[in-house]
């Protein structure tokens, strides 16, 4: 990170603690115990005490990511450092859509994907799938307890000092001195008692939430999780070189509890054919395949789990130009055929535009803009999105030669010193990371430019 970027992150970060209600949607959540155990819950073997958001169950929202934070910690105890790979990212993915995430390398795209499939213990925030919480982190809640306690202790000190000052201010020869002192003391005592109770309430609710988070992380329904599969960027590294293609694909079946060898082989062959390979390939090892074929094996391995949500992490970046279109077309066909919902991660905007219905733009761990792909290209609002769009090379020498690229310099275009940014909905479905002042400007811009 260079200095500018550090400033951007620091300025926009400072007071987030107070701003984020980690689970504001809780208000609508019913008491978890008296929910009907529906057929769906029986099918997915969902624990009745698992946290859920009833408004999402059975709705169009397949995946809901709320205030996701994924930090990585390094260094020694004294000199410890944290890297905020993903910081307070929220979005919903709808059934049947293709949801794109773009941004420069290192901005946290892969980490977001991996957090969703629980490859990491997430630091903070929640991930809901079909309305059930599959993953959550408690750092925010712990911080909340810590900071509220520290602040209250400070406040108590202030109150005590105030008490002392007020008592001293009463003249020594005041005839009612005794009574006045008693009154002040009583007043302060009551205030401290009230505050103690309030703090205890906060601590208790946060503790309960932490308990719930720990419980949820332990009781994530496996059947639910197996519906989410991921295809990785590097088709070479992600396949075990000592396993045959058959073993690689069957592994998933075994995890699901399918034991019948003949049946399993049949399924493997079916999957291979689906991704454009043939039965003969099943006995070979990954190194005997070309890059494009390996990516197909990776796709087959994911598909055999019969996923509903497929997270594709730069599935074509490592492939050769002539092969890329094959894989894109394959994913498109599978999406139709199997009714998949796809989360498509990439740094190549033209591929994402081609493939996705909605696009989220990330910058240094933050989601800075989210809207439909047509809108994003027509009316980009965030200056980072604009600079990204201005940099896509187009295969047209006539326009390309005169292209002017925009450079994004966070500390020149934003002033986040007092007015802090957060994700605002500028108009229905179009979210931008900005502060109040910028929000007004964007709304004004949209009024004059859009339709």
């Amino acid at each position, binding site marked *: 990170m260079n200095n500018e970027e550090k400033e951007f992150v620091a300025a926009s970060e400072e007071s987030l603690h107070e701003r984020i209600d980690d689970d504001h949607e809780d208000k609508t959540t019913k008491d978890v115990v008296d929910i009907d155990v529906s057929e769906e819950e029986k099918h997915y073997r969902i624990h009745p005490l698992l946290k859920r958001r009833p408004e999402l169950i059975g709705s169009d929202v397949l995946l809901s990511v709320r205030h996701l934070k994924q930090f990585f910690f390094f260094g020694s105890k004294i000199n410890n450092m944290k890297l905020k790979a993903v910081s307070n990212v929220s979005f919903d993915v709808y059934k049947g859509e293709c949801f794109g995430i773009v941004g*420069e390398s290192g901005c946290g795209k892969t980490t977001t994907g991996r957090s969703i499939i629980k490859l990491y213990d997430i630091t903070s925030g929640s991930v809901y799938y079909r309305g059930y919480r599959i993953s959550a982190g408690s750092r925010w809640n712990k911080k909340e307890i810590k900071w509220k306690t520290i602040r209250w202790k400070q406040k108590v000190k202030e109150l005590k000092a105030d008490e002392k000052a007020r008592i001293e201010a009463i003249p020594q020869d005041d005839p009612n001195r005794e009574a006045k002192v008693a009154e002040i003391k009583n007043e302060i005592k009551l205030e401290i008692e009230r505050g103690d109770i309030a703090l205890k309430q906060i601590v208790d609710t946060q503790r309960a939430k932490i308990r719930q988070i720990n419980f949820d992380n332990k009781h994530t329904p496996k059947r639910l999780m197996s519906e989410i599969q991921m295809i990785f960027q590097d088709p070479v590294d992600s396949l075990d070189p000592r396993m045959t293609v058959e073993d690689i694909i069957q592994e998933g079946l075994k995890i699901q509890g399918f034991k019948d060898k003949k049946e399993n082989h049949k399924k493997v062959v079916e999957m291979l054919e689906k991704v454009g390979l043939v039965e003969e390939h099943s006995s070979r090892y990954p190194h005997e395949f070309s890059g494009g074929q390996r990516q197909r094996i990776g796709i087959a391995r994911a598909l055999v789990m019969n996923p509903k949500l497929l997270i594709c992490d730069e599935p074509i970046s490592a492939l050769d130009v002539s092969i890329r279109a094959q894989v894109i077309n394959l994913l498109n066909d599978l999406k139709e055929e199997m009714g998949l919902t796809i989360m498509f991660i990439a740094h190549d905007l033209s591929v994402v535009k*081609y493939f996705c219905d909605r696009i989220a733009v990330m910058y240094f761990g933050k989601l800075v803009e989210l809207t439909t792909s047509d809108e994003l290209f027509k009316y980009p609002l965030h200056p980072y999105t604009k600079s990204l769009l201005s940099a896509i090379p187009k295969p047209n*020498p006539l326009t390309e030669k005169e292209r002017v690229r925009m450079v994004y310099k966070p500390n020149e275009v934003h002033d986040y010193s007092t007015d802090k940014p957060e994700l605002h909905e500028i108009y229905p479905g179009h979210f931008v990371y900005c502060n109040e002042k910028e929000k007004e400007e964007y709304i004004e811009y949209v009024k004059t430019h859009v339709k």
Partner: protein
Amino acid sequence: MAEKILEVKNLVISFKTDHGILHAVRDVSFDLEKGETLCIVGESGSGKSVTNKAIMGILASNAIVEGGQIIYRGEDLLQVAEEEFHKIRGHRIGMIFQDPLSSLNPIMRIGKQITEATLVNGDKLKRMFEDIISDDLIAYKNAVARGELKAEKVIQAAEAANIDALNKNSAENADKKGVKAECKARLKAAKKEAAEIRKVTKAETEPLRLKLEETKKAAKVKVAEYKAKVLADYKKEVASANGDKEAIAAAKKKKTDNLRITKMEAKRRALEIMKEVGIPEPEKRFRQYPFEFSGGMRQRIVIAIALTETPEILICDEPTTALDVTIQGQILELIKRLKKDRDMSVIFITHDLGVVANMADRVAVMYAGKIVEYGTSRDIFFEPKHPYTWALLASIPDVDSKERLDAIPGTPPNMIYPPKGDAFAPRSKYAMEVDFLEEPPFFKVSDTHYAATWLLHPDAPQVEMPKIVSERIKNNLAEQGEKGGSENE
């Protein structure tokens, strides 16, 4: 017509591998004009890097240059002796690679890496000497090398004929002894002929050698004179300084500057170049290690290193493939600016047609070790003729449309067994029978535009390019029209 600065003619390069001979470059010809950017585009494995490594003289040890010429400043780079080659490419042809990390030394400070080349060539006396003799030296060494090559070719021809004869013989099962004797005789004759050629060469090159000796002597005298003058000047200045310490120091500095490039001078130049390629805070950066830089900054450093030698040709081998779009844009701008400021010619290798559109004056499309089409940027983007060029244009997603992509079926060919005829035929839906049998020659489309496809043969059936491509071309031209129109208003 512009001056041709580099010509590659009928280049053929193979590699010895465990599985057999791999035919990486199969008869590639192109030229580079002064001041232009030539883009070479094609999928990985098509021979782009190998072609350019041959120009740089940095082919892997298992490479066999089977034929061809690379003409630069009137000399064939494939034939000049190694030391000349290094001199030419080091000074005049620079190259930057896809992965900047692999071309930087991870444990050496950036500053040292940039000044290294300057310092190595920093002995001004040696350089002066070399400059004086270089023309004669190259002429002599090339003459010798050419003679040797002729001699070797004779022997190789005999050996090849022998192998053929033996093979044929074993197939026909005829007179074994006779054939063997015949082979022996043939080889002996060839060796004799080669010896004769060598003798002739020696005689022929003798005047060149004598001339070189003369020049060397003269050069030595000249260098000694120069050195003596520098030292005399220094003494004079010291004497006239009358003990003034500053004046003496200045004289001393002048003396060293005249004799060699000092570390300080090298550093000053390095900092200048770092600034030129847009590295902020060069003083601080000078002392850092490669890992402390982002990918884009590393690529800038690699460019800075290439520039310390003031090259006249810059070869860029996918310099932006590993970078993000925004950084890629900046590096492309930088290369364009440097090219203009320093009056360089650029060979730019990429597989990204967007980058080609941005950079290229002319484009060569490569497939399976051959150039299949070349022309101006306009020719290739708006009037493509080869089915592989069509396929490339059709297979990239376009920001402006959502129609199904025309994927290229199959996989690139195994270059140990390159396909016969038109190498792209097995993957092309436009392939005709002749494509599988006979290799298409280049057909002329216009003065600037050539394509090697039988579709251009007068007897070929009329076929249209894929609809997706023609639509895009129409849209692209229209987009320009719109823009042009609004600008005129």
